[in-house]
């Protein structure tokens, strides 16, 4: 009798419970070398699959990933980097690391397994002595890089002797740009020659050029950053944090951009390029890490992952282009479930079946340091697949069949608001509105919502009630936020 019951149970579970989170993703802690402070500044794979990990105190370890998360055979490859927060692995014996004062190439030239040559690859940005001025990188596709150069924090000083020219106007305010190129994206060509690319960033902790060649970075909510933005970065554009403009010879409106834009907010809004996607700070992502595209073969291929450096969360971003304008929706990819906080670097393995996440908070809060691995077990959870804008509302698609009640407009709530970045540390949503919703169309896996009063320049909160799919799988996320920078033409 007992045996029969157990058998019945085992057979019945998949039939009735559908696909749960744990059937889709496994989250593991990767053990770094014993005794090493696991403050992961950056991670990258070599073409042969060797994983390199930069720790913020200066060591770089490498190992071939093992099936056992505690069984990595780590070797110290290089050391001596000052808060290295970006790495490009050129080969299993050559890496480039962005550290505070420069970008450095470290090479094992004698084949003994450890780097013996440390060559300056690129420099030209200053260093004020402030603790906050970390840098990160992404390849430019032509042997060079785009570099994200963070600003300084008012919670720390500068030195009497600064590396690079000091600007009194740049030093003012909360997060500041007292020396060159703080708050900029720079371009370094294949020979390491650095030129400015785009301005107006606060702390773009991670930058990413996607396989199509588009350049993306996040930023940290704070002064002149209303929420957590994802920016589509283009040459010559200004992304909203004024301090960086002290280094822009084309900015002639004032010698004190911070004070100027504080007093001329309308002009500020005309001059700045808004975020492609605004990610609400509390609900979704408190501090953006490095963006990373889901690879081919993944169910969410082509969508973007954005780690949350200040929460146990990874955000999933569904981008689309309306006319010439990038915009899109966000929801959680993973929220909790054993994920640590401190998420800021992301790399998929070459086969796309695993995702490594580097984590560090040290110096910004209770330490949440380390390296975790998410393995894609195969099944796809019942989740929002994509949110796209329509001339009159949104089409919300799912990964599995939706139950009939989801097609009932009473199951849906849509509200909207605006964000105005300004000198304050973050901005509250303004001009909040509730929108009447009707269901314009419904398919097996999607609902098209007609939203009354749909307008551009607003962030839409789209919520349905939690339910199970027709296959019996529980819905992972019932809330998405869509940033409507532009509306499609009917």
């Amino acid at each position, binding site marked *: 009798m007992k045996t029969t019951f157990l058998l019945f149970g085992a057979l019945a579970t998949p039939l009735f419970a559908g696909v749960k989170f744990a059937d889709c993703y496994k989250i593991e802690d990767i053990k770094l*070398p014993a*005794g*090493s*402070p696991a403050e992961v500044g950056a991670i990258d794979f070599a073409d042969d699959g060797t994983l390199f990990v930069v*720790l913020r*105190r*200066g*060591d770089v*370890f490498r190992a071939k990933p093992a099936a056992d998360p505690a069984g990595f055979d780590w070797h*110290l490859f290089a*050391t*001596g*980097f*000052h808060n290295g927060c970006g790495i490009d692995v050129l080969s299993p014996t050559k890496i480039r690391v962005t*550290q*505070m*004062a*420069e970008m*450095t190439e470290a090479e094992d*030239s004698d084949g003994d397994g450890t780097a*013996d*040559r*440390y*060559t*300056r690859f690129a420099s030209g940005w200053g*260093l*004020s*002595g402030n*603790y906050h001025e970390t840098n990160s990188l992404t390849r430019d596709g032509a042997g060079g890089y785009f570099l994200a150069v963070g600003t300084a924090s*008012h*919670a*720390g*000083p*500068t*030195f*009497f*002797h*600064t*590396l*690079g*020219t*000091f600007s*009194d106007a740049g*030093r*003012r*305010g*909360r997060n500041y740009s*007292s020396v060159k190129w703080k708050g900029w994206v720079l371009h370094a060509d294949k020979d390491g020659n650095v030129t400015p690319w785009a301005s107006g960033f606060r702390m773009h902790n991670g930058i990413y050029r996607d396989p199509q060649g588009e350049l993306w970075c996040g930023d940290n909510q704070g*002064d002149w950053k209303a929420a957590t933005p994802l920016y589509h970065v283009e040459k010559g554009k200004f992304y909203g944090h004024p301090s960086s403009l002290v280094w822009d010879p084309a900015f002639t409106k004032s010698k004190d951009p911070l004070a100027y834009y*504080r007093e001329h907010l309308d002009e500020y809004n005309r001059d700045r390029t808004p975020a492609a996607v605004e990610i609400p700070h509390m609900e979704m992502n408190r501090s953006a890490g490095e963006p990373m595209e889901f690879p081919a073969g993944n169910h969410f291929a082509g969508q973007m992952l954005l780690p949350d450096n200040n929460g146990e969360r990874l955000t999933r971003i569904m981008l689309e282009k309306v006319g010439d304008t990038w915009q899109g929706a966000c929801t959680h990819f993973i929220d909790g479930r054993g994920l640590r906080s401190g998420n800021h670097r992301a790399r998929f393995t070459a086969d796309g079946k695993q995702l490594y996440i580097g984590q560090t*908070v*040290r*110096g910004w809060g*209770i*330490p949440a*340091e380390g390296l975790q691995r998410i393995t894609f077990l195969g099944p796809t959870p019942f989740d929002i697949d994509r949110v796209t804008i329509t001339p009159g509302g949104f089409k919300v698609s799912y990964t599995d069949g939706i139950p009939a009640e989801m097609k009932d407009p009473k199951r849906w709530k849509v509200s909207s608001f605006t964000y105005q970045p*300004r*000198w*304050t*540390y973050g901005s509250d949503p303004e001009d909040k509105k509730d929108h009447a919703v009707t269901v314009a169309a419904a398919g097996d896996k999607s609902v098209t919502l007609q939203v009354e009063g749909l307008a551009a320049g607003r962030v839409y909160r789209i919520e349905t009630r939690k339910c199970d799919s027709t296959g019996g799988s529980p819905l992972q996320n019932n809330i998405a936020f869509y940033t409507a920078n532009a509306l499609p033409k009917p």
Partner: protein
Amino acid sequence: MRKTLILLTLGLQLDAAEPPLTFNNQPMGTLDRPLVLRTYVPDPGIDDAVFPQHDRGRPVAKYNPGIGQDVKGEIQPVAGIAGAIAVNFGPALSYVFDTTECRLLYAWQGGFLDMTPYWGEPDKGSRISFDYIPRLSGTLFWQASGKHPVEIGGKSITDLGPRVFTGYHLEKGVPVFEYRVGEQHFTFTLKPSDQPLSFAATLTGGENTALAYHGIDGAAGKGSVTFTVTGSQLGKFQGYKRVNNIAKASAEVGEKLFNQYGCAACHSTDGSASHGPSLGGLAGHPVEIEGLATAVTADRAYLLESIKAPNAKIVKGYPPNYMPPFGLPDVEYDSLVLYIETLGSPE
């Protein structure tokens, strides 16, 4: 005994591998494998003339982020070097090479850097606000002054153009710094010397030209010059000073202080070898002292003297001038001695 042997063996193996950085905020290298650490480093009061390739950080009006405006008062810059590289050979030598000025800034002995204010405590990880520059530990004996000291063909290289750092390579683990002026390339290497308060330097560059290091007698040659520099005690540093409010001396407090003051960087507690004599099995046992025919017993008086005045009695096989004297309140000295006494007998 057996345990000690095992620990000794383990210790040797650890030394044989590249020792990675740990939560120890007073990391040290060794003679064979110097530690290269890029970090903000302190400015012990170096002459402004040393910094022509830096700019001057200036005070700024205090800013109130709550109201978004400047308020009364100013925020002053602090002393520190931004783009430097610090190198440590163990107690024998530490120095700072600056990648912006492309020159040696200062050298010290008997310790390295205390990273506590910058790296924070392992469980908290918080830096010390506005005061996070790592602290020196040991005896400062040489610091730079005046313009760049390198001359070729009798002319200062500062006349030839800006000095540009290009990198460094390791020769048997020892960093060789590289920079150029125009198309003229230079290297600079520093190693410990067998003399106290000294270092040995090698400068290369200007292959067929007279090369000299200004201000050092005999530091001249063609293409390459090696010279020894002997300094004098310019200052003693004890790392980052913590505040301890201790009512009563105890071994427990002593253990805490032992960790806080980074004693473990040089002294093991289990008998295993390190930069300084081990404290395991020390208390109550005979110790051989340099210059003394008979061993002395490590009693309370000996232990107190050795912490207060480390050079008073030098243990055979260990160099003098490496351990800084710790200016501590009596209650802390007493606690440390009580703790060391608990380590006197093997477990």
